């Protein structure tokens, strides 16, 4: 426990911005996990007068349908975090495995997989997400699926280049020479050397996935309209720009703070895990 505390102090001293990011992310996770206890009202409860400005009873006002904005923003954290974490875990993990296996074995399968990656990356990401949502239909889990398809090729390509350089190292040759089967070389010698890349990909892409989810909801193609998605709340706010500015400010600031926190934390994690940038941490 003591060692844990001292490592936290050290991280805070060396990466003050990263520590600030970690605090924001911790608050977000807390809001997401304890949403039912924290939110004063249900996210879909329309029991109040519409367009109420912020007050003691409704700190963030109410929206066009008379729903409590504070409750919706808290439940929105849950939705954002779920979409962000689930899609990144599926997308980056699948993509990483895909990249590791094809790069390790090389040959025709590798060439073919590169063409698939090229094809999936032949479209601006938002456009691909839009087309996928049009085909899949609107639901929270389809957003996760669309994001998985969006993230996997990038992860595959990144991991592929990492594995290609690992594959050329003498220790892989040595492992093969002493008779390790391929699966053992991959599992024990290749994969552990890709963890730093994997961790960076995960942290960077969670923020990205949250923004894409919000963009899709903003365009009316993400989660169904009554779900408390920050992007959808922003769209509703845009339609009442002058009459009820809190309607777009609240979700907008929520997204921005979340992404800022994740970016700061991600930067710090990259600095700590990248050996070239590592200071005296040891």
């Amino acid at each position, binding site marked *: 426990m003591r060692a844990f505390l001292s490592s936290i102090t050290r991280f805070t001293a060396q990466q003050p911005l990263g520590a600030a990011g970690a605090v924001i992310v911790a608050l977000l996770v807390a809001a997401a996990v304890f949403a039912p206890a924290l939110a004063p009202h249900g996210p879909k409860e329309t029991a109040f007068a519409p367009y109420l400005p912020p007050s003691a009873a409704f700190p963030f006002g109410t929206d066009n349908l008379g729903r409590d904005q504070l409750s919706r923003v808290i439940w929105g954290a849950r939705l954002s975090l779920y979409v962000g974490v689930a899609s990144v875990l599926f997308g980056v993990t699948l993509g990483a495995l895909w990249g590791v296996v094809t790069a390790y074995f090389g040959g025709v399968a590798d060439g073919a997989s590169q063409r698939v990656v*090229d094809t999936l990356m032949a479209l601006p990401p938002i456009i691909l997400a839009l*087309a996928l949502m049009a085909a899949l239909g609107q639901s929270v889990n389809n957003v996760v699926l669309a994001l998985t398809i969006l993230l996997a090729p990038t992860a595959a390509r990144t991991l592929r280049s990492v594995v290609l350089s690992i594959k050329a190292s003498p220790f892989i040759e040595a492992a093969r020479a002493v008779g390790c089967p391929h699966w053992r070389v991959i599992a024990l010698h290749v994969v552990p050397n890709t963890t730093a890349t994997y961790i960076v990909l995960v942290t960077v892409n969670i923020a990205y996935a949250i923004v894409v989810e919000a963009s899709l909801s903003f365009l009316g193609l993400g989660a169904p309209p009554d779900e408390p998605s920050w992007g959808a709340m922003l769209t509703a706010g845009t339609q009442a720009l002058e009459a009820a500015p809190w309607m777009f400010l609240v979700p907008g600031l929520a997204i921005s703070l979340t992404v800022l926190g994740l970016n700061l934390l991600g930067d710090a994690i990259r600095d700590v895990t990248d050996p070239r940038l590592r200071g005296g941490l040891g």
Partner: protein
Amino acid sequence: MRRDYIVQRLVMFVPTLLGASILIFILLRLVPGDIAEILVYQTGSESSAIQQKQVKQLRAELGLDRPVAVQYLDWLANALRGDFGQSYLQRRPVSDILRERVPRSLELAALTLVLAVVWAIPLGVVSAVRQNTWIDYVVRVVSVSGLSLPIFFTGVLILYCLVRFFRWLPPLEFVELWSDPVENLKQLIWPALAQAWYISAPITRLTRSQMLDVIRQDFVRTARAKGLSERAVVYGHALRNSLLPVVTFIGWWGGRLLGGVVIVEIIFSVPGMGSALAQAVSQRDYPAVQAMVFVMALIFLGINLFVDLLYGWLDPRIGHV
């Protein structure tokens, strides 16, 4: 640059574009309820025997009863001749819509890029030259926050300020560049600024880190040692050698801006390709969606190809790997 590098890049272009068009074609056929059903049932309330017959007839008329592969080849053959079919909802050729909308979106993307570069690169340079001073900290905080404010939030925020404090309203009618350039710029400057704010952040960060790398190298010290002015050292030697990755990064962003314009165009009511695409998707106008996505892939891949070749030309080592 080796010739086979260029050839290889050019040869890859066509299969990738075809792959993307097949992907979209299949995706749009996975949608439950094809266009014939949508067109018939939107008029009537419940499905009757007559309507089912109509659906069948319409499918035959639109060629939807043929195998998917035949439909695709047919579409491709027409597309190569510049015929993308009829928009179901606007009831006019999709190629007309493209001709009207694509230039506007390209103009918006180009304007965004120019605005972003004009302030992002000098900021990055100043931040690196004055590393760890207050200017550096301000620039770094501004660029991290620029990265964190999603385009749809800054866009709406700018729109709100314009509406609230300047009584500015999104124009009812779009003015083309060639009919009145000044009025056209007035309409596009705000969406371009909103987007430029967002993309300038990574450009500033990259310029800064590149400059920091280069400024410590021996040839910069030599330049200083032989008595060049600080100005000549920074702009003549350091900056020129830092810009290579920045240039490719900007090119890469140029392609992605095509996706970004969807959102700004909607916020600022710019009738470009992005807003047309979003509308076509939500109204299930598939021939229009298909064509627009195809054109976007074409432009996107074209820009990527150009950037790759430019990179190979700027840095001759690339082609030899």
